[in-house]
């Protein structure tokens, strides 16, 4: 019972059709705005935002410093040119981003809706809809705002909605208007409706609404049952009218979507820290040099004053030192590269485009390409550790298909050899003109059985055609459309339809079907409706012959108990079949019937009526009545419905979990459904020691459940010192799975239980949270973010996933059928879950790698460049004299060295994309943050400083005594500057050629082009022409020519380059030899063996023996049908419609029956699946495993064919434990390779643990094991 408290101050009053009145309250309009700027505010707001960036403010500060002549050691343009460039590039990018936000806002805001204005319906844009308006909705339209349902085209003011967008539940829901308004009906009456609604203020509770309607001096209570929320879709209802209560940002949908947070990557944060450190370093250097200046001025400068008097403001050495500090801050500022941030943005933008352009993430069915909606997160895609996934629409397609069935102990629909010839899809049309052309079934033995008139088969399909609550619609003759309340039911009725038992129409008291071409009308005596406790539904019908029969379908667990004892044998066979189906992750139902005599029926009918009329405990009494008659039933068989997973989901999950990514499923769906999907996408397997289910309703019970499971779980191991042991931990904990319910989760998320929950959940291999609200999804994500310091990714497709998508580090939206809310909130969107592996393992990995390499090189090159000034300071009286020409300083970062490193940052690849997918372990460096961290940073810095030392002291040592061949000394400042600058450009160019691993044409052009541009620009700047125009700007006239013509200068440059590069080269070579990374090894083997191998498919069969029941159904439809409330006259009329095709097609059928030959028994198909499956999936992987496994003695010829590994794999299933000793010698032979040994050890334990179930029927785990082996090695 819901209590509506008074809402004194914040209550909302809405009067229908009275805009003036409603405007007084200034409610939000229906316009949504996610964009940040408009044309006028863009410049100031954007600049303000940009100067909030510490770096930009810093450069502004530098610019101001440079304007002070006493300090200015560099011209102002050395800072303003790069700064302006940086600001404008960022501004252009922000403007483009915002433009697209405007565009998508506009798209939503400009959707059309029909608004009742002054008595007539007018088309209005969504954004112009106001609170208090009455709008008309038509079938399949999105609801524009939160509406109070006033009237509907359906009887009794009923209307059906799909709330998938809101809560992810895809079954239809019924909404009903208040009876007084439902009578209003058409626009004419509605226009005069002036009721006033008083209700709660906007909130985010989707399942609750409290309000009162005041109309004609009467009060009517309003509940959520009367509301249509924004984001829902109207279904099965021709039209309805609603009063806008909440609009735009006040709607429950928007209230649930949370704030847009600006997301930063961990690299961003690290970069900011490092930049701060560099600032500190800069200040330190400034202080050192200022002290040096003080000492020098006191010891030398004061005496040198005859030639160099102190400037007027300087009257002592201390003041000179003070000025010198600032001067050095200016010239050393390039250690914090101004172009860093903009280069990072450019690289990310490039990566985003590659994501957008990727054809392999393009879905041709839905004609959508992947889209990187934010361009700032790419490298974080290479560091993901936790994935939070929605179920419906994300893992599953939300399409149910009738997959298999068992009739009278005979199973049909067995999938044959997956690698053999693809079985033909049955064509039903010649047999049955009313068949649904979209229906797929492959086993023609079932059709044969129907055709030969097998009684059981006929009864089976008759049941399916009668026992349901589906509504039919026949727009034109023969074109049947079923409106099922749950997709499962739709699939079953459609199956019956195709096999010749066509449900045609119904009235409250009859069901008309067409059985094998013959129209039959049954009298519907009763519907024993479904509910969650009964887990079954029945109908009692009287056939035209007058026989009364009860048809029942339901969960095997409940139905098999209620069978007549004579069914014992059949029941055993059927339950075997059921187990098989469940093992395949199918949703199963058992079917049974019972013949009732007229007396039995009369007796029961009386008791039923009595129960129905009861005022107290009606529910219980009804249930008891149902229970009474659903006894001694005869088993007909079982159905298996496939909740179709999206393509490649199990494979993707397998690959991702091999990449050490933990996947949590968060779904609003029911526990049974969620678990079922968990099994079918192989998150849950039979190998799991324990699947914990937490479903307590109270704090205590949840705590208790968590505790008890915590005890069973291995205690979390002490923090492992080196990273490898973490694999071991995963392997130990790999055996547990946790399933938690929404209400339990609410308790588990409370502050005091949080840690307990996290530690338990993280010890489990799979975690499934079901029945969770959108907000809880976000809370779970926040929880992991808070406790684990890991990068999280949330993926979902519905509006119910928006909050989770926004709170995760990375949000991915599936652009499926469920609207675009999730996509709009997401950072990346694509249309298939399986693209996630490519997004993470290929794009993310590359992005991370490129970004890290870029940053390393970037810091290196700037330190090498800048620190030369520091060394020079000791020789020029700490006077802040720059070593280089000021133009060189201006252009170094933005011209001479920018493009090659950008090209590397955008195009570099270490291993090709297929390899990243084949060896998911390649993803690990990103998660462990190995490629760019503080240590790597210091190495880069050290290398940069070393280079700067070489770059200063080598020219110093050489040039101080050197002369030109005409005797002119070379030790003049300009020659020294040109020599050092040239050496610097050449050294950093050589370094980038070493760092670039993937030389495309563009890299070549950029590297050579940069070198070329350096020389070209230098010669231009040192030319006479420019000097003649600005004699005081171009002091270096002629320096380039006279310097670079000297062989000594080139010898100096060569020497400096060699001293800088040779140690790096040697170090890298030795590292590659002594401590190769997995990527190095993969790359090496790749290069050595140019032979291409086809990428493998990870298909495998599961092996779970359990019974499942998942009937995504809702109570209440049976009642609606029998009461006739939802029947329209048209459909009633249709019930008497008779088919014209009936006479001809049964004859065709009979003729065909003789021509059809016996189909060969699928003997080969039954035994072949396992091995063929293995050989289909494993070869490339086992190949790679032996290649990478360090088994140097294995000749390559053995690995090229797919046959050899397949054979070896066939041995494995026999007893997988034997593989452990088989692997051991390998690991011993690889003993010298330290890390490899450790990894091997990890593999051994993992395979030992994972493959313990030697008798497990599935090749799946084995495949997993092998993949694990190959990847770890």
């Amino acid at each position, binding site marked *: 019972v819901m209590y509506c408290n008074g809402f004194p101050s914040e209550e909302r009053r809405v009067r229908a059709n009275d805009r003036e009145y409603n405007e007084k309250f200034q409610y939000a309009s229906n316009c949504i705005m996610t964009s940040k700027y408009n044309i006028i505010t863009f410049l100031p707001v954007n600049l303000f935002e940009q100067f909030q960036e510490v770096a930009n403010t810093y450069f502004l500060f530098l610019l101001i410093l440079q304007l002070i002549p006493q300090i200015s050691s560099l011209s102002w343009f050395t800072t303003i040119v790069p700064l302006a460039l940086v600001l404008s590039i960022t501004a252009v990018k922000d403007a483009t981003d915002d433009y697209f936000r405007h565009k998508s806002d506009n798209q939503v805001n400009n959707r059309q809706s029909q608004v009742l204005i002054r008595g007539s319906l007018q088309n209005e844009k969504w954004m112009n809809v106001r609170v208090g308006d009455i709008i008309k909705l038509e079938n399949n339209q999105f609801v524009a705002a939160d509406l109070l349902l006033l009237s509907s085209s359906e009887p009794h003011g009923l209307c059906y909605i799909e709330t998938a967008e809101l809560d992810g539940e895809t079954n239809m829901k019924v909404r009903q208007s208040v009876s007084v308004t439902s009578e209003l009906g058409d626009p004419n009456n509605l226009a005069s409706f002036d009721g006033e609604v008083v209700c709660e203020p906007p909130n985010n509770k989707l399942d609750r609404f409290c309000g009162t309607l005041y109309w004609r001096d009467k009060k009517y209570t309003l509940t959520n049952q009367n509301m249509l929320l924004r984001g829902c879709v109207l279904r099965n209802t021709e039209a309805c009218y609603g009063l806008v209560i909440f609009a735009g940002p006040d709607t429950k949908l928007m209230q649930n979507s949370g704030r847009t947070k600006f997301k930063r990557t961990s690299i961003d944060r690290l970069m900011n820290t490092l930049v701060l450190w560099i600032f500190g370093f800069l200040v330190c250097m400034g202080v050192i040099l200022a002290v040096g200046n003080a000492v020098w001025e006191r010891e030398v400068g004061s005496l040198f004053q005859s030639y160099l*008097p102190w400037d007027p403001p300087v009257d002592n050495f201390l003041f000179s030192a003070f000025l010198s500090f600032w001067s050095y801050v200016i010239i050393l500022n390039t250690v914090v590269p101004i172009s860093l941030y903009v280069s990072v943005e450019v690289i990310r933008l490039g990566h985003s485009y590659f994501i957008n352009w990727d054809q392999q993430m393009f879905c041709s069915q839905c004609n959508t390409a992947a889209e990187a909606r934010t361009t700032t997160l790419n490298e974080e895609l290479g560091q993901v550790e936790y994935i939070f996934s929605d179920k419906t629409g994300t893992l599953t397609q939300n399409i149910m298909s009738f997959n298999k069935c068992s009739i009278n102990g005979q199973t049909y629909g067995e999938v044959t050899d997956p690698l053999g010839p693809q079985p033909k899809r049955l064509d039903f049309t010649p047999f049955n003109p009313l068949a649904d052309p979209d229906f797929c079934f492959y086993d023609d033995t079932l059709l044969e059985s129907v055709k030969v008139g097998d009684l059981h088969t006929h009864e089976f399909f008759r049941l399916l055609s009668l026992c349901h609550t589906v509504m039919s619609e026949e727009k034109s003759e023969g074109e049947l459309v079923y409106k099922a309340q749950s997709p499962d039911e739709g699939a079953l009725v459609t199956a019956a339809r195709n096999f010749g038992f066509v449900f045609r129409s119904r009235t409250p008291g009859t069901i008309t079907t067409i059985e094998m071409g013959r129209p039959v009308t049954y009298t519907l005596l009763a519907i024993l409706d479904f509910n969650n406790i009964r887990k079954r539904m029945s109908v009692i019908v009287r056939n035209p012959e007058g026989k009364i029969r009860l048809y029942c379908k339901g969960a095997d667990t409940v139905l098999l108990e209620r069978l007549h004892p004579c069914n014992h044998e059949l029941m055993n066979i059927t339950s075997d079949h059921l187990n098989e189906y469940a093992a395949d992750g199918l949703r199963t139902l058992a079917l049974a019937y019972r013949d009732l005599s007229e007396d039995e029926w009369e007796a029961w009918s009386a008791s039923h009526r009595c129960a129905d009329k009861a005022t107290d405990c009606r529910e219980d009494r009804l249930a008891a009545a149902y229970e009474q008659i659903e006894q001694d039933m005869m088993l007909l068989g079982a159905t298996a419905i496939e909740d179709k997973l999206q393509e490649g989901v199990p494979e993707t999950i397998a690959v991702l979990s091999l990449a050490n990514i933990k996947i949590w499923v968060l779904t609003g769906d029911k526990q049974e459904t969620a678990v079922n999907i968990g099994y079918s996408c192989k998150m849950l397997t039979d190998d799991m020691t324990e699947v914990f289910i937490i479903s307590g309703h109270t704090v205590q019970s949840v705590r208790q459940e968590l505790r008890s499971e915590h005890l069973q779980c291995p205690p979390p191991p002490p923090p492992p010192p080196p990273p490898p042991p973490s694999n071991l931990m995963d392997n130990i904990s790999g055996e547990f799975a946790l399933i938690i319910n929404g209400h339990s989760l609410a308790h588990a998320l409370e502050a005091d239980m949080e840690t307990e929950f996290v530690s338990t959940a993280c010890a489990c291999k799979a975690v499934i949270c079901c029945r969770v609200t959108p907000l809880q999804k976000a809370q779970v994500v926040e929880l992991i973010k808070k406790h684990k310091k890991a990068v999280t990714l949330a993926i979902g497709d519905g509006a119910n996933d928006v909050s989770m998508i926004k709170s995760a580090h990375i949000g991915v939206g599936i652009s499926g059928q469920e609207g675009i809310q999730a996509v709009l909130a997401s950072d990346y969107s694509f249309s298939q879950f399986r693209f996630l592996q490519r997004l993470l393992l290929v794009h993310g990995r590359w992005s991370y790698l490129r970004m890290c390499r870029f940053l390393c090189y970037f810091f290196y090159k700037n330190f090498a460049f800048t620190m030369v000034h520091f060394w020079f300071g000791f020789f020029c009286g700490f*006077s802040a004299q720059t070593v280089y020409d000021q133009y060189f300083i201006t252009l170094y970062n933005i011209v001479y060295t920018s493009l090659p490193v950008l090209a590397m940052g955008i195009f570099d690849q270490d291993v090709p994309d297929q390899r990243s997918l084949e060896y998911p372990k390649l993803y690990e460096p990103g998660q462990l943050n190995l490629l760019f961290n503080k240590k790597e940073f210091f190495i880069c810095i050290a290398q940069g400083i070393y280079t700067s030392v070489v770059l200063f002291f080598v020219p110093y040592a050489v040039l101080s005594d050197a002369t030109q061949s005409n005797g002119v*000394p*070379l030790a003049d400042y300009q020659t*020294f500057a040109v020599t050092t600058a040239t050496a610097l450009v050449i050294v950093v160019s050589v370094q980038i050629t070493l760092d670039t691993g993937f030389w495309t044409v563009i890299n070549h052009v950029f590297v050579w082009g940069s070198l070329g541009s350096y020389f070209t620009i230098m010669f231009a700047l040192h030319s006479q022409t420019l000097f003649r125009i600005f004699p005081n700007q171009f002091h270096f006239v002629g320096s380039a020519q006279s310097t670079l013509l000297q062989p000594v200068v080139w010898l100096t440059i060569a020497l400096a380059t060699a001293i800088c590069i040779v140690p790096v080269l040697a170090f890298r070579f030795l590292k590659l030899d002594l401590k190769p990374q997995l990527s190095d090894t993969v790359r090496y083997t790749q290069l*050595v063996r140019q032979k291409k191998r086809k990428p493998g498919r990870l298909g495998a069969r599961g092996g779970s023996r359990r019974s499942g029941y998942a009937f995504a159904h809702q109570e209440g439809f049976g009642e609606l049908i029998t009461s006739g409330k939802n029947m329209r006259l048209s459909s009633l009329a249709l019930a008497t419609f008779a088919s014209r095709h009936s006479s001809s097609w049964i004859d065709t059928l009979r003729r065909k029956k003789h021509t059809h030959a016996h189909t060969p028994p699928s003997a080969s198909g039954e035994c072949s699946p396992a091995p063929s499956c293995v050989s289909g999936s494993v070869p490339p992987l086992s190949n790679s495993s032996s290649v990478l496994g360090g088994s140097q003695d294995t000749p390559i010829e053995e690995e090229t064919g797919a046959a050899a590994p397949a054979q070896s794999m066939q041995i494995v299933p026999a007893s997988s434990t034997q593989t452990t000793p088989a692997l051991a010698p390998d690991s011993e032979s690889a003993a010298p390779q330290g890390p490899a040994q450790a990894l091997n050890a990890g593999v051994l334990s993992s395979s030992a643990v994972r493959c313990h179930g030697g008798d497990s029927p599935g090749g799946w785990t084995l495949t997993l094991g092998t993949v694990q082996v190959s990847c770890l090695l």
Partner: protein
Amino acid sequence: MVKQEKASANRPDNTAFTQQRLPAWQPMLSAGIVIPGFVLIGLAFIGIGVALFVTSRGIQVLEIDYTGVEQNSPCFPCTDQNRKNCVCDVNFSIDTLFQGPVFFYYGLSNYFQNYRKYGVSKDDYQLSGDLSYFKAPSSTCSPYEYDKNNKPIVPCGSVANSMFNDTFKLFQIVNGAKKQVSLDGKGIAWWTDYNIKYRNPSVTPLKNAFNGTVKPLFWSKPAYELDLSDPANNGFINQDFLVWMRRAALPNFRKLYRRITDGDYAQGLPAGNYTLEVSYNYPVLSFGGRKKVVFSNVSWMGGKNEFLGIAYLVIGSMCVFMSIVMLIVYAKFKFPEED
């Protein structure tokens, strides 16, 4: 058909660029490249190093400090600030023929021509002959912008003001008599400095251009009278002025003073005794500076430069050494070899 076209509209282009499949060269630091590479680089460096070392060995250098710090040194009397036009004779002898052409440098130590404010203290417009800057020198010249009477200084600034003004005459003592060695002062400055960067105003006579200006404070002669023997060698294109104006990069430097290229000494300075007559004007002792003269000849690679040769030899041998180390390491821990 229409549907197909529509479907292909969103499909990303299948080009090598968009699909990141651009043909690319993927270099790998394989042993087959790195080790021979190191050997080659090493050998090349050793070769160059030997050549440089040998060449450098063949170059003769004679350095004479004439600052006059020690009391017994010939120029000691001239260190007294109050003495004007002090001349001192520095004697030295050469044992073997000093191969010509011989270059004659003066050198200064502990002298900070590379000090930032010293370097900017000049007026480039003025020095390029722009007469308007004769009247109003740029403020960068401060404090050598105007004299006490507020007359503009031309050439202004610290660099010009501190121009080195010792002059030298070299005599060979032949049979007790002084035989002057003719010194060639032409072409000792950079070609661009002489022809482009520094220009006299196009006023004849040059002296008129300097009307209303004063000479730098430390100068004894105005700019237009720097070389009385050669009227073309005056003003801003005086060779000695140009040499001075080209700032040294380091505090110890030498600058070319003269060449010994003609007459009897074109082949070099023969063995014997010499006298260097120094007119000692330039004070350096106040800030601990030193003055010296240097005689040197050059090779293809310029003057004597032992560092370069030795550095090449060291780096070359280190490369060879590293290649051996790498070979050993590689032989021990090589990748699984596959052919």
